[in-house]
C-alpha cells in the first residue's frame, strides 16, 4: 500500500528553518523519507504550484531552497509549523560503487544542497570525501561550514576571487585530485548544467567515473509528459536526475 501511495502528495510541516546565505534557506521538515541523495521530490503548495527539489536530507526531510522566482520565494515565506506537500522520492539518486574509495564532490550554486546529504552517506560507508564548492561571490557560497563540520576536505572557488581560488569549480579539480588520499576517485557533481558538462569532460579525459545530478524542466515527474527530456531520449525524472555521464553528449541508446 505504501508502495502504491508513493505518487500521492503527503503533507509535512516545517519543523525548523536554517538560513544558509542571503538568498538560500533550508526547510527542515517534521518527518523522514526513505531516499537516496540525488533523488528529488515534487514540492506542492496548494494554489501556488509544484516544482522539483533535491533532497538535502532525508531523516528528517530537508529542502535547501534558493529564492530566485515566484515558487521558490513562496517557499521562503513558509514559517515553522506551516505545511508543505511532497510527492516522492522520485528518480535515480547517486549510487556510490563499492568498495569505498575517494569521493570528490563538485557543487555549484544550490547544487551543494544534495552533496551534504551525499557526504553524510559516503562518510558513513567509509569513503574519504573531498568537495569543491563554487559560487559567484563569497556571499553565495553554500553549506561550507556544514561540510567542514562533517570532516570533508574543502576547496572553495569564487568567480570574483573574494574567497578561495578565483575561477570556476572545475578550476580546483586538479588540485583536489592531487591531494586525494587515495588513487581510486569517483566524482559526484551537482550544479548548473554548464558546470556539469565541464566536470564530465574533465572526468572523461582523466578516466574517472562520474555521477552527475542533471536538471531539466519538470512537469509530470512520472516519465510520461516528455518535458524533461535531455540528450537523445533520456528522461531526467525517470532515468536521472543522476546520470553516469553527460547525457547530452554520451549515453547512446542501445
Amino acid at each position, binding site marked *: 500500500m505504501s508502495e*502504491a*501511495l*508513493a*505518487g*500521492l*502528495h503527503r*503533507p509535512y510541516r516545517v519543523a525548523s528553518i536554517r538560513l544558509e546565505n542571503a538568498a538560500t534557506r533550508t526547510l527542515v521538515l517534521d518527518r523522514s523519507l526513505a531516499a537516496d541523495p540525488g533523488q528529488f521530490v*515534487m514540492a*506542492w503548495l*496548494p*494554489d501556488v*504550484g*509544484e*516544482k522539483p527539489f533535491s533532497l538535502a536530507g532525508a531523516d528528517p526531510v530537508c529542502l535547501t531552497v534558493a529564492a530566485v522566482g515566484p515558487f521558490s520565494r513562496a517557499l521562503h515565506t513558509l514559517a515553522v509549523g506551516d*505545511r508543505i*506537500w511532497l*510527492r516522492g522520492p522520485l528518480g535515480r539518486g547517486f549510487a556510490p560503487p563499492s568498495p569505498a574509495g575517494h569521493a570528490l564532490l563538485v557543487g555549484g550554486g544550490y547544487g551543494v544542497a544534495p552533496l551534504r546529504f551525499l557526504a553524510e552517506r559516503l562518510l558513513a560507508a567509509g569513503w574519504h570525501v573531498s568537495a569543491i564548492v563554487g559560487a559567484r561571490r563569497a556571499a553565495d557560497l553554500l553549506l561550507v561550514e556544514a561540510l567542514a563540520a562533517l570532516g570533508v576536505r574543502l576547496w572553495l572557488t569564487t568567480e570574483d576571487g573574494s574567497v578561495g581560488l578565483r575561477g570556476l569549480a572545475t578550476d580546483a579539480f586538479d588540485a583536489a585530485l592531487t591531494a586525494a588520499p587515495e588513487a581510486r576517485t569517483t566524482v559526484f557533481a551537482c550544479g548548473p548544467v554548464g558546470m556539469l558538462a565541464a566536470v564530465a569532460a574533465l572526468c572523461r579525459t582523466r578516466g574517472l567515473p562520474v555521477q552527475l545530478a542533471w536538471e531539466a524542466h519538470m*512537469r*509530470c*515527474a*512520472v*516519465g*510520461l*509528459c*516528455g*518535458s524533461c*527530456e535531455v*540528450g*537523445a*531520449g533520456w*528522461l531526467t525524472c*525517470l532515468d536521472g536526475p543522476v546520470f553516469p555521464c553527460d547525457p547530452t553528449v554520451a549515453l547512446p*541508446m*542501445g
Partner: protein
Amino acid sequence: MHDRTKAPLACDFLHLRLRSPLVLASGIIGTSPTLLARAARSGAGMVTAKSCGPTPRAGHPNPVALDWGGGLINAIGLTNPGAEHEAALLAEAKRLLEPLGVPLVASIFAGTVAEFGQVAAVVAQAQPDLIEVNISCPNVGDEFGTPFAGLPESAAAVTDAVRRALASLPQPPPVSVKLAPNVPDIARIARAVAEAGADAITAVNTMPGMVIDAEAARPVLANRVGGISGPALKPVALRAVYEIAQAVDLPIIGTGGVLTGVDAAEMLMAGATVVGVGSAVWYRGVEAFAQINAELQQFMAAQGYGSVAELRGLALPPAARERRCAHV
C-alpha cells in the same frame, strides 16, 4: 508455422505488418523523435506521437499528473508545438523509425471541425503511417466545450472533415478516431465514425476524474479535473473495446490500463486488433514494452496460442467472435 514460432508477436494492422501488437499511446513520451525511437527500440510495434493542434500550446501549470494509488490522473493540457513544427518532428521521427521497422502514428486535435481537417493536412506532409484523431481529450473542456467524442454527430463530422482534407493527397494515410470512455453508448459513436469513413478506432482515451487532497481541501491538479489512466481504467477500456468490436468491423487499437502481457492478452480477447500502452511507462519504465512483449509471448506459449491473431476476440460472444475473426 515456422515463421510464427520465431515471431509469434508479429501481426497485421490495416496495411501494416507490426513486429509486436504493442502501440505507444499518444501523449506518453511521444514529444520528440528521439523519445519515439526509444519506445520503438524498447519493443513497441508502432508508436504514436503526442497530439498536436493548429497552434502551439504550453499546457496547464503544475501539478499536471500524479499516481493516486489506483492509477494515474493527468491534465497536461495538450502541450504541443503546433502543427507546422510537429510536421517537421514527425518527418524526423519517421527517419529514425524506418530502420527499426516501426510505423509512426501522428495524433491531432483541434477546436473546430474545420480545424481538424486543416491540422490533418499539415501533419500528413510528414507521411505518417496513420493519423489518429483525438476527439476525446478530457482536459481542455473549458476552451473547446464538450469533447467531440460525446455525440455521434460531432464525432462523425470530425471524421468526415479529416477524410475530406486528406482525400486530395496522392496517398492519403488511413485514419483512426480516438474515442472517449465516458459516453452512454460507445457503440453508437463507433458506428457513426465508421460510417463517416474512419479506417480504425482507438479506444479509449482517459476517463475524467478528480483527486482531492483532504488536508489541503483542494483538487491536486492545477486544472482541478484530469483524465484517469492506468490500472483503474482497464475494466472500463475492456468493456468499451468489447462493445466496439461487436458494433463495427474496423480494427481497434485497444488502450487503457495495460501493464502486463496478460493485460495485453485480455485486451486482444476483448476484440482489440493491437494494444495501446501508456501509463505502463510510469509503472515499469520505458522498458515496459520489452517486458510486456516477453510476458505476452510467454503467456501465449503456455496456453498454446501460436499468433496474436488467435487471441483476437476470444472473449466476445460466439457469433461476434466469428465475424470479428473473418473481418479484422
